[in-house]
């Protein structure tokens, strides 16, 4: 049976008295569900923040009292409103849903195919390197990660996609950029919609702001549209404090972020970015990847992103698809969520001070298939019946001190082993 608002309010008040920090989250949920006045929803959020930042017990107690009063106010406001008001609220929500459907129909289709390469191949006579049989589909709003060791064809693939190199085998087309299969590509038109950031970022002259205005102008954005696009990207990428700086005044990380701003200011349909994480600290990596994820997913200006990185776990956390290249050949090409679904064993990566022999002895009580050692870390392969929890419980029981642990059963990291 569904609980009444009175019961829920009482439970919340009890919770607020026992564990105010955790309950402040429940207060927000309660306000979201029952507050007819949107002001309550805002105030619940502010009280949660106030409590988290409260300086002393007196302050905390004062905030708890305010939270308790708010629960009562939400209940009395809810109860005193006639049924018709509740219906009006529901009607408003229904209109919001209708709005979403309306927007979906009128905005660019996400997941539309922007690029398709079929059996693409490229041979280099001098080095005898052969990139072969690449089947790649880039969809609007999706991120495709390309991984593999250095010299295995990632940059070659990128240069084929952006039209810097001509392929020797296979076919490519850009349906989302006005190029249909079987027709001659208009490279001027195609390249005008692709942004390519190579690993070695080319140096530029002048301030960031002026460069952004120029990049936007070269892609047809003029007047207010140009000004808006530049202002948006500077603030969106958190560069406002540096907009007047020149190349020599910037760190490696900011050079990358500024180059990204230059590439994104004119809203490309495809962004190809080679090893962007190499010069970024951990925080900046997370910010850049998160920004790319959100910008690719834009409703009005969705973008297909092709990205490479040696930072596998970070990359896997934002990509939709992954391509693993080894000596020019595709080892895996598919959805990241599907990787390892058909696996025959689980794999756990750990770092500890034990020798391989000692580790094997200590692991003997657990059903495992094999242990690999890459010089730094151990990869322990177990039957599927051994879960991550079982594995960790065994490490604890055996008192094995570890400095690092990761379940790589569904990570392309396994392909590097």
């Amino acid at each position, binding site marked *: 049976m569904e609980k009444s608002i009175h019961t829920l309010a009482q439970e919340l008040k009890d919770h607020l008295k026992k564990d105010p920090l955790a309950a402040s*989250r429940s207060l*927000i949920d309660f306000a979201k569900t029952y507050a007819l006045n*949107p002001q309550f*929803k*805002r105030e619940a*959020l*502010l009280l*949660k*923040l*106030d409590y*988290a*930042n409260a*300086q002393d017990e007196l302050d905390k107690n004062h905030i708890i009292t305010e939270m308790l009063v708010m629960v009562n106010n939400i209940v009395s406001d809810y109860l005193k409103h006639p049924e018709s008001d509740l219906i009006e609220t529901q009607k*408003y*929500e229904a*209109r*919001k*849903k*209708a*709005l*979403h459907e*309306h*927007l979906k129909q009128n*905005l660019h289709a*996400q997941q539309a195919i922007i690029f398709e390469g079929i059996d693409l191949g490229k041979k280099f006579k001098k080095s005898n390197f052969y990139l072969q049989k690449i089947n790649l589909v880039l969809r609007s709003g999706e991120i495709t990660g390309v991984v593999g060791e250095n010299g295995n064809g990632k940059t070659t693939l990128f240069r084929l996609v952006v039209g810097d190199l001509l392929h020797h085998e296979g076919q490519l087309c850009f349906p989302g950029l006005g190029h249909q299969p079987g027709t001659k590509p208009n490279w001027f038109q195609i390249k005008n919609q692709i942004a390519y950031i190579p690993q070695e970022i080319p140096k530029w002259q002048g301030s960031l702001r002026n460069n952004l205005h120029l990049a936007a102008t070269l892609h047809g954005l003029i007047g207010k549209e140009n000004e*808006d696009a530049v*202002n*948006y990207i500077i*603030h*969106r990428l*958190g560069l*406002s*404090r540096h907009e007047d700086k020149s190349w020599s005044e910037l760190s490696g990380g900011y050079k990358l972020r500024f180059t990204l701003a230059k590439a994104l200011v004119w809203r490309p349909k495809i962004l190809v970015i080679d090893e962007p994480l190499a010069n970024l600290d951990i925080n900046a990596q*997370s910010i850049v*990847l*998160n*920004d*790319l*994820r*959100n*910008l690719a*997913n*834009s*409703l*009005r*200006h969705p973008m297909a992103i092709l990205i490479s990185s040696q930072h596998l776990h*970070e990359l896997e*956390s*934002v990509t939709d698809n992954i391509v693993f290249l080894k000596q020019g050949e595709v080892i895996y090409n598919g959805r990241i969520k599907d990787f390892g679904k058909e696996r025959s064993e689980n794999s756990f990566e750990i770092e500890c001070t034990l020798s391989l022999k000692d580790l094997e002895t200590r692991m003997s009580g657990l059903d495992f298939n094999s242990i690999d050692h890459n010089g730094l870390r151990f990869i322990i392969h177990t039957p599927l019946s051994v879960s991550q929890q079982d594995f960790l419980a065994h490490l604890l029981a055996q008192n094995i001190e570890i400095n690092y642990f990761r379940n790589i059963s569904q990570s392309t990291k396994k392909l590097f082993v």
Partner: protein
Amino acid sequence: MRGSTSNSIAQRSEEIYNLLAAGDIEQAIKRLMDFITDFNPSNTYLQKIIALNRDYQQFTADKDPQAEGFKDQRNYLIHQIFDLIDQIENDLISSI
């Protein structure tokens, strides 16, 4: 880390609310910029969010979270963010 993959207007405004509830005002402002780009095609509110971001940058650079007035300024910013979302949603709803 995975960023947002939801794209309904309700989910997007909820995402901003949740970022604010987690105290991540910087990311909330970023996502509000994206919200404006997606749901306010005429960019009527772009200048407002940029001004708000400037205020936020200034405010975080100058103030210690324990300093007097911090809470009021933070709350003022959060109300401004909510007001902008409401304005954009209402504009869109009244336009269909």
